[in-house]
């Protein structure tokens, strides 16, 4: 247990110490929120869909949690490069615990980042349906965070160096974000797109956030929670297996 805790603590400490990066990481979501939120707002309104900012805020929170958690998993590559990974790999602790500690740490960091973005959204004018929405939102944020931190760990364990990073970014992480319905409603989509979005685990995460935060969803919170939970378990298992196979 103490090994899981100390590795979790390491991730959280490193996050809290990187103040410049915390501020830098607010840039992208702010752009989406303010430029798209206010830029596309009138069109969205004319289409009879209400406030775009209101609609998009859960998507932007989901995006931040996605990016932070995947990257925290991929940070494994940095630890490999800077040598720290070896230190943990030869320790007399089952690798599954090392993997769990790292993944939970990454997920916690992603949740903190999500909370930060939620506060930014609230300042920008986002209003959840009720006060209870916020703690319920944390539950979905946590599920998104664990799922994608596990995915990040799986990727980090499988790559040898950062050369594959751009590939992962452009062909996995960005598609996960764009196909998740973070920016557009999932109703009445062309069949092909609807099919692809339904395969994207983040669709269920964003949908769950939308259900609890603004009271409107596509799949319904129950299906969202089931899908997220199931995919998270599969990825945790797969990530643990990949992690146990790392050779230096």
């Amino acid at each position, binding site marked *: 247990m*103490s*090994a899981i*805790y*100390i*590795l979790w603590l*390491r991730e959280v*400490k*490193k996050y809290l*110490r*990187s103040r*410049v*990066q915390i501020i*830098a*990481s607010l840039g992208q979501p702010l752009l989406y929120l303010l430029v798209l939120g206010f830029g596309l707002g009138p069109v969205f309104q004319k289409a009879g869909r209400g406030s775009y900012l209101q609609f998009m805020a859960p998507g932007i929170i989901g995006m931040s949690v996605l990016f932070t958690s995947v*990257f*925290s998993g991929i*940070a494994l590559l*940095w*630890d*490999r*490069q*800077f*040598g*720290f990974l*070896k*230190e*943990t*790999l*030869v*320790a*007399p*602790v*089952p690798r599954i615990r090392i993997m769990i500690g790292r993944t939970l740490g990454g997920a916690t960091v992603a949740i903190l980042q999500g909370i930060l973005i939620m506060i930014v959204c609230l300042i920008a004018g986002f209003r959840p349906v009720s006060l209870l929405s916020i703690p319920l939102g944390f539950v979905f944020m946590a599920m998104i965070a664990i799922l994608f931190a596990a995915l990040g760990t799986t990727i980090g364990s499988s790559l*040898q*160096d*950062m*050369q594959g990073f751009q590939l992962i970014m452009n062909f996995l992480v960005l598609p996960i974000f764009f196909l998740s319905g973070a920016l557009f409603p999932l109703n009445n989509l062309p069949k092909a797109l609807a099919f692809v979005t339904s395969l994207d685990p983040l669709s269920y995460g964003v949908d769950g956030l939308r259900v609890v935060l603004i009271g409107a969803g596509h799949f319904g919170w129950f299906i969202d929670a089931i899908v997220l939970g199931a995919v998270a378990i599969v990825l945790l298992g797969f990530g643990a297996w990949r992690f146990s196979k790392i*050779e*230096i």
Partner: protein
Amino acid sequence: MIRVENLVKKFGDFTAVDNISFEVPKGEIFAFLGPNGAGKTTTIKVLTTLAKATSGTVEVDGLNPVTHENEVRQRFGIVFQDPSLDQDLTAWENMDLHGVLYHVPGKIRREKTETLLKLFELWDRKDALVKTFSGGMRRRLEIARGFLHTPKILFLDEPTLGLDPQSRNQLWTHVKRQNEADHVTVFLTTHYMDEADRVADRIAVIDHGKIVAIGSSAELKQRTGTESLEEAFLKLTGSTIRDEAASSADQMRQFAKMWRGGGARR
């Protein structure tokens, strides 16, 4: 304590370790000498569960590192050749994390950390982030960390690289003490022949992945008809200079230095 029989490790077409066999009995200080790229670190990786042998038998305290990796890991400590500290943590935190991973109880962990950091003259910088440390300080911290727990076998992979004579002296005194007091088996590699001469009970010389000679320092000198271990070493391995190809990790470090200002993420 360590038994290696017909060990082969290949990376693709390249044979890093080519059919070597040796044994290290309990309580011995065993030095593994060889030019760059001879296969020293690869052998250590196989012994310490970081890499799998292509073929051959390896036993650490009677256990196979592939099938009993956790049990094997409980038995050794290691100081790596290349850096393995977390640069975004402080010296104290690096020690503490190591202590927790190696199940050193809280009180002993704190006491030993203090003693070791003082011994290696890092105590007044204990709360500074490791990325602010000089190369020598980092090296000293890695070594201090290696002594935080008392393993059955201690692997030292070129531990004195970049160390000043004072720290080097501290290191070997400490190694000797652990070896004598706790019967710790020591497996070390170094490029400094005088160190091997001073501490090692037995020496194996490895070149191009093969062991070319094994025995005590006196035996090696006698066999080659030379005066010093350095001459014996040169006679055994020739005087051409070897270069290791820069690994992808080294290239990445280079690359990372270029655009990495502060932290490690993104």
